[in-house]
């Protein structure tokens, strides 16, 4: 006990002495360096994932495309769901959900792949997750561009569709926050990936990706509306497909929730960042 207090006093003393004799400089060069690291890591991930070719992107699109076709067949011919403009409804849901699943899982995989790197060089560890998210973001942006093009060409075009930027940004922030929280869990619990895979399978049906939340039975309906991804999907479809506008409070609460989650995840990550090289 006394030893611990003494150690504390000693540390405080050292801190005072040393900070007085040195002035730590956080210069601009660290920023440019960090940006360079994100870019190089993202480019490397990208080349490895897509084999540096357009064909590689098509392979990554195959999974959501197959999912889309299967669900489209099942829910248009086998179990008919009552959703207006079902094709666009389903396509938007799949594109968004696919990014969420892809980004969160690849974040944990990137952490595993870069484990030895974190033990050798110091750079802000969040860069690993930012670059893995950026890689997933690449196919998301192309898929989303295809979605928007399909809507504009085959459905309708209106000026208010510009508002889709809101759900897009919110969704990217929410995905990044989830990735950060999962990354922290992964550092301590290596089976987070398996657990998360189960959560994703269940979450897919708790989110109105393929069904209409309004027509769902009571408990599921509430879950679908409380679910932040579900809310963002409601916003997206309202602005892009249905041209109707959710209440301002709906938009605000969703935005606020995403920002709070982002703040929490950044706080959590920064608290545990220093443990990454030791525990990983």
């Amino acid at each position, binding site marked *: 006990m006394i030893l611990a207090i003494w150690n504390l006093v000693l540390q405080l003393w050292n801190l005072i002495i040393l900070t007085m004799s040195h002035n730590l400089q956080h210069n601009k060069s660290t920023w440019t360096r960090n940006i360079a690291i994100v870019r190089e890591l993202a480019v490397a991930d990208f080349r490895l994932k897509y084999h540096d070719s357009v064909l590689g992107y098509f392979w990554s699109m195959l999974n959501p495309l197959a999912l889309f076709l299967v669900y489209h067949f099942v829910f248009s011919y086998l179990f008919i769901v009552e959703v207006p403009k079902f094709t666009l409804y389903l396509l938007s849901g799949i594109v968004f959900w696919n990014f969420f699943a892809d980004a969160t899982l690849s974040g944990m995989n990137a952490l595993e792949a870069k484990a030895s790197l974190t033990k050798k*060089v110091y750079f802000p560890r969040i860069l690993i997750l930012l670059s893995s998210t950026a890689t997933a973001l690449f196919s998301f942006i192309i898929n989303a561009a295809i979605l928007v093009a399909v809507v504009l060409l085959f459905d309708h075009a209106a000026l208010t569709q510009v508002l889709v930027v809101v759900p897009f940004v919110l969704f990217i922030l929410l995905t990044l926050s989830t990735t950060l929280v999962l990354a922290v869990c992964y550092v301590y619990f290596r*089976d987070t990936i398996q657990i998360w895979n189960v959560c994703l399978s269940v979450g897919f049906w708790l989110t109105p990706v393929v069904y209409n939340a309004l027509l769902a039975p009571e408990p599921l309906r509430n879950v679908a509306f409380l679910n932040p991804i579900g809310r963002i999907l409601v916003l997206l479809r309202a602005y892009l497909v249905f041209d109707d506008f959710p209440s301002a409070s709906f938009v605000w609460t969703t935005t606020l929730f995403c920002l709070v989650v982002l703040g929490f995840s950044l706080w959590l990550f920064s608290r545990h960042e220093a443990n990454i090289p030791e525990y990983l």
Partner: protein
Amino acid sequence: MISIRNVSKVFRIPHQVTKTLYHRLTSILTNAYEYEEFYALRDVSLDVQEGEFLGIMGPNGSGKTTLLRIIAGVYRPTAGICLVRGEVAPLLELGLGFQPRLTCRDNVFIYGALLGLPRDEMRMRYSEIMRFAELERFSDAPLDHLSSGMKMRLAFSVAIRSSAPILLVDEVLAVGDAIFQEKCREVFGRFKKEGRTVLLVSHDSAVVEGFCDRAVSLEGGVLIEQKSFRESDDRGRDHTFRKNDGN
């Protein structure tokens, strides 16, 4: 440049590995939640002046690499403080972050970014780097196709481009053939002329004596010995001293 005060680093060695949530839950049930503490470094204090070449010696597991990792900012000390003024380039391992499936060119840029080399400079110096490594013909070959010696040459050619004032070098000289070691020697000579601060970890006391102004020895995480090789620039750190914690 570097001030280390009473730094200790404790690692926990669990009696049972609990790296998964499943293990953690079962270990709560069986109450097997014990661990041992292992002091990798114990109350180490050290100052390194600007432009100094410091050798760090000691047997395996004596805490040399842990000390470098604390200076590099990778590990946070359990107790004590480590302050570093100036940018640090950790050459802890040659070829850090190399991706075997990517080309040499890609790898040079990844490694450069990790070492904090500006991209524009890397672009300008790229051909020079490849020439120094004598690997110009392999620019677009996957790194996998290179021999281990070639990979090391490539990594070394990038690493020495670092402009950081503080360099942490871990056993780089131990690997490589005579020609490679000769190149290392030349580069260290250049670093010395440029007034860089270098921390060099090595088993080889001949290497340390050849390059360093001063050397410290670690044993069991305790700094046991400091000795100076250069009489001229001694400023109060001339004598060999022993420090013992009774361990």
